[in-house]
């Protein structure tokens, strides 16, 4: 049999066939489209709908953007230039952008907020990126004082006198170190407070009368636009994190009274809208303070926004604290660390790492909430926009203004959320 078989087979392949190309539906664009756009009829319908929606949007929005008018003095002029066609009137931004950014801040002093904004990045760089030299942290610590001085102007000595209080506090802390914790902490708080209350004012005005170093003062009511959003936002962010940590620790505390005070504060602040707190700041604060006191509206707003964000921050950090395994606390105790050392070296680094997304979300929320100050008469970007829309020149403009404002907010908030994702990746130590 085998002989005949061998003779009847005329040809035996002795080389491998080269592999055939996959069918055209399994390669390249077609394969990708089959898998990602037309995977079943539901997906196909969705794709068609999505493409139709995008196409509709482009067809309607393209002429609007393409016909943009950049040079005009009023909406009527814009419409004359457009001559019936649809088109954006970006001239409204071009004419008003300085007001949208600075409010009524004196134009010849614009360099001060601009300089501060640039320096802000220098100040936060060592906090954001570990590769920046640690010595820059000294600048970060001084930045708030510089910012207050340059924004509001006035005598440099006032700021330096306030700053001196912190130095005095530090010196007292070092000097009284051997006298026991309670005496040391008490003196460290008491001496600077007494200095600020009794000595700082006369000292500053005294030195200023001898060696005046002053820049033009600017009143709070001249602040406005994105500048005020950034001022309130940055101050709120910088203050709410440390206060939030303290409040979270208070809520986790074994001391019943401290715990209940923290709980009541947190639940109250989280239970009412921010806008009611802002109205409290603008309407009611005069009732709660000694008769005749009157302090800056922006400062009041910063305090209220900070308190509001602090309560949310405390809850976020409490989540991080609760997520830590009990063993971490016990290990810290076993090492003989006291409460604050344990918190600083063991608990907080881990708890804060866990709560990064929540913390940054709170920051983003706070920054977006700065727009609410428009309700108590501060001319933030939205307030400026309403004022611009109320003028006879620009009545009827809205998309252009709000797209501009929204885009600026979007850049800030999106940037923050991306940074938090980067930070999470950088600090990730588990091997999943």
């Amino acid at each position, binding site marked *: 049999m085998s002989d005949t078989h061998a003779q009847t087979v005329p040809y035996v392949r002795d080389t491998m066939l080269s592999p055939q190309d996959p069918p055209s539906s399994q390669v390249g664009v077609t394969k990708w489209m089959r898998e990602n756009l037309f995977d079943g009829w539901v997906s196909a319908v969705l794709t068609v709908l999505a493409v139709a929606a995008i196409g509709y949007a482009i067809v309607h929005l393209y002429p609007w953007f393409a016909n943009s008018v950049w040079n005009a003095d009023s909406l009527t002029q814009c419409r004359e230039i457009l001559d019936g066609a649809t088109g954006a009137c970006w001239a409204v931004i071009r004419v008003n952008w300085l007001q949208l950014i600075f409010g009524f801040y004196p134009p010849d002093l614009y360099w001060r907020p601009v300089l501060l904004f640039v320096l802000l990045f220098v100040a936060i760089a060592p906090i954001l990126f570990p590769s920046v030299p640690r010595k820059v942290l000294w600048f970060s610590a001084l930045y708030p004082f510089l910012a207050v001085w340059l924004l509001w102007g006035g005598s440099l000595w006032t700021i330096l006198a306030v700053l001196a209080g912190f130095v005095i506090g530090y010196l007292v802390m070092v000097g009284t170190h051997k006298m026991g914790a309670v005496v040391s902490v008490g003196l460290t708080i008491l001496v600077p407070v007494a200095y600020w209350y009794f000595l700082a004012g006369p000292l500053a005005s005294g030195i200023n009368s001898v060696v005046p170093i002053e820049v033009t003062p600017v009143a709070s009511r001249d602040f406005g636009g994105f500048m005020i959003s950034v001022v309130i936002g940055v101050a709120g962010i910088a203050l709410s994190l440390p206060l939030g940590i303290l409040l979270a620790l208070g809520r986790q505390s074994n001391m019943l009274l401290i715990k209940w005070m923290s709980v009541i504060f947190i639940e109250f602040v989280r239970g009412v809208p921010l806008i009611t707190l802002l109205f409290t700041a603008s309407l009611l604060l005069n*009732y709660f303070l000694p008769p005749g006191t009157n302090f800056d509206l922006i400062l009041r707003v910063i305090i209220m926004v900070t308190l509001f964000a602090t309560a949310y921050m405390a809850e976020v950090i409490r989540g991080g604290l609760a997520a830590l395994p009990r063993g971490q606390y016990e290990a810290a105790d076993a090492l003989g660390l006291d409460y604050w050392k344990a918190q600083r070296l063991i608990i907080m680094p881990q708890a804060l790492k866990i709560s990064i997304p929540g913390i940054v979300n709170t920051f983003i929320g706070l920054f977006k909430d700065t727009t609410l100050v428009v309700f108590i008469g501060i001319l933030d970007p939205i307030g400026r926009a309403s004022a611009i829309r109320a003028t006879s020149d620009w009545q009827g403009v809205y998309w252009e203004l709000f797209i501009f404002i929204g885009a600026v907010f979007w850049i800030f908030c999106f940037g923050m959320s991306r940074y938090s994702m980067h930070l999470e990746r950088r600090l990730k130590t588990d091997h999943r």
Partner: protein
Amino acid sequence: MAIDSGAPKESFRLSMLLYDTRYRSITIQIFALFMLMLGAAWLVDNTVRNLAALGKDFSFDFLWNTSGYDISQRPLEYDSTSTHSRAAIVGLLNTLILAVMACATATVIGVVAGVLRLSNNWIVAKLMTVYIETFRNVPVLIWIIVTSAVMSESMPAPRDFRGEDATASMQLFDSIAITNRGVYVPSPLFERGLPDLTLGSLALSLNAIAFLVVVIASIWINRRLVANATRVQNETGVRPRTWWKSLLILFVPAIALLVALGFHLEYPELRGFNFSGGIQMRNSLIAMWIGLSIYTAAFIAEIVRAGIMAISKGQTEAAFALGLQPGRTMRLVILPQALRVIVPPLISQYLNITKNTSLGLAVGYMDLRSTLGGITINQTGRELEGMLLMMLIYLAISLLISGVMNYYNNRVKLKER
């Protein structure tokens, strides 16, 4: 032999209050209490002195005075001769109406967007990402004001609907009119309706109550039916068919009631310079509703996505290995676990919506903040009492919602051992 009697007994010394951890916490607490009371006394003293200096007293009597202002959207009977307290109640109802409407639409949009962002379809997923990132990162106030501006500036005026060559037309089979004065929708009317039930100054529609009772009763009976089917399935292994019974129970009584009451819709019609008939949803309500919904929906979408992604793939695979079909896998295995992750942050978004209704001020929506916390305060000069009352009401709503959340959390908590 001396017997070791444990630690040496120390007599109490005053310094132990500071240096002994057993006593230090008490010292700190007493100190904190002292400071707290000092602070509170300082505030109260200032307030009393300030009030005295202004010649004001602290009383809530103003609530019973005539308000003297009008409210555009009135879920209750109200006019300018009503009291301030009634204005506050109308405002509170407006707040709640808006909150419920916004919660419902935000949930629907958010769930759809969250699920679609997870879909395998590349273009749809990208589109949803763009939607979520755009709306999440721009303040809600901007969305509200933009919606309001679009409604009042680019929608047709009622007179555009008039005549042969009208430039605008009504939507959805001539039932809805979108104008720059608001959206007009059909209103439900009853030919043989029951009279209104009057309780003091409160008028309740018996029609609505009857309808609600019937619907709730049908749902309850349907649940009994399903429970019964489950029992039969547990005993015999065969699940009786119930879907047609369910449909009958759920829809027939309600429809029968509506027919009996002579239910029909009244369509808005153009009369003179404006629409009449139907329900007018004012621009302020529409702007708040749309603004809050699309903004919060972006957050809800992320919550839904996180919830679904939190369930490990092993759960799906295990369910398939047990022979469950995809639909049942979703319903019996994935959803119950995902909901445990989704619901708490979802409820806190509802809380946010409720608090954000106070932004109604920006577009003139007459909510609690605009009535009690706005015009009433301005007219009576009772900032302290008005703000206090308003904060307490908001606080009560918030605590109620968080109470519901805690109850839910406790019910679905993983029983860990």
